[in-house]
């Protein structure tokens, strides 16, 4: 079953600054009044890396992680599960889904997964 993206960003009602992850006060004006915003549109890759020295809890030989910006300005980190030889470039468009990104204490942890369109 396809899951909705579990990311909720927060737009300051006073100055309009968009936040993800959550902050109790706006990073720009310190207001506490936010409107919840879901990421919308096609995410664009801002930067990425292929990690070959993995942390405990992540299986595999390598892991590709990137940061994307959705069309409505929400920025978030996600995994890019493609072959290490797959060409990636900053600025390319990706397709976003919400899938298991690791297992902790026997439970799937869901997160942002990105693939080339």
């Amino acid at each position, binding site marked *: 079953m396809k899951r909705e993206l579990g990311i909720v960003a927060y737009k300051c009602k006073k100055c309009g600054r968009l936040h993800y992850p959550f902050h109790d006060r706006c990073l720009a004006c310190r207001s506490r009044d936010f409107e919840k915003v879901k990421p919308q549109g096609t995410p664009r890759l801002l930067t990425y890396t292929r990690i070959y020295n993995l942390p*405990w809890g992540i299986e595999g030989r390598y892991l590709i992680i990137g*940061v994307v910006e959705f069309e409505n300005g929400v*920025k978030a980190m*996600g995994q890019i599960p493609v072959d290490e030889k797959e060409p990636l470039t900053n600025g390319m468009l990706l397709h976003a889904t919400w899938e298991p990104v690791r297992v902790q204490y026997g439970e799937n942890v869901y997160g942002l997964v990105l693939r080339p369109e």
Partner: protein
Amino acid sequence: MRDVAVIGVGMIQFGRRDEDTLMDMLAYASLKALDDAGLGDGTVDAVYVGNMAAGMLQHQSAVASSLVDRLSLLPAAADVVENGPASGGSAVKNGLLAVASGYYDTVLVTGGEKMREVTGWRATDIVATMTHPEAEYPYGITLPGMAGMFTRLYMEKYGVTREMLVAVALKNQEIGALNPYAHVEMALDKNGIFNSPHSIVNNPMAADPLHLYDACPVSDGAAAIVITALDKIKNPAKAPVLIAGFGQATDTQTLQERDDPTDLKAVTLAAQQAFERAKMKPSDIHVAELHDAFTILEIAESEHVGFFKKGEGGKAALDGKTRLGGQIPINVSGGLKARGHPVGGTGVAQICDLTWQLRHELPKERQVKNAKTGLSVNFGGFGNNVLAFVLRRVDS
């Protein structure tokens, strides 16, 4: 506020120290600093210990309480200070403020970590716990991974090249090989790690575009300093080194929330505060210890503290301007790249190395001639909590 000076320093060799516990290492470095300060059988008013992860690595807490007990410094006040890889710098800050305020006269600051007790897999995860618990950590991001993403942006914006990064690695390991306290005792050959068939094997990708030799080693180690009020020092055996200024600043925890992710604002602000307090400017500094956990950070920090304009730090490294004898010698200790990075100890080790430089106690192959001023930068998180210190030699 009182002027505060470093009167004693001590360090043990960083590396893999299977024979020592964390407490052994903290005690050895502390005793050396006490001896150096002429307090071999004396005491201090308070002890601050910089340590990031004894709770996770050794299943041990309250290490400052253990240290004062072990060193017979009772009933001195004792606290652990935790600020990720800037724990050492934060411990120095706490000691500095305690003495500057007049509350305590003499303080021992010790920093250390025993990281090789666990596998690299586990240590990488423990260090990654400083990333955001919802927006970053679950994805498996590591600190090298953060540095890789930062490097890609920095290369794109400022034209930093692989060769510039390699220049930093070569410089720091060449001079680090002369440092008896360094973890890595081996100089590198450029052909072995850059643009050659050998380099593919010797220097594999770690977190692209960063390779193995762009990163510092994971180390065991400890360092310590003794600080006191300058006006309490009478007939010093060694030149006191004044902590002329310090600064600390924070930034967003996630890289993506920064207006410009290549702008290390906390580095700039911490350095500006330190310079302002010391009534100095970047061009007044004779030697610097910058937090080169990754080669890109030495380049970026050299620009953000004001030694070079944005985009010129990489070329400066390539042109030898940051070598001993250059315009501004950076990481003449070998830096984190060669001395190593026991995370809680690094900020204190930087002050030790600068103190030796400003006392002119190093052999000539590592001594910056007539050095009287120094700058250190201790970089916490991925630049979200940074400390800077300006030191100045006090001549009688």
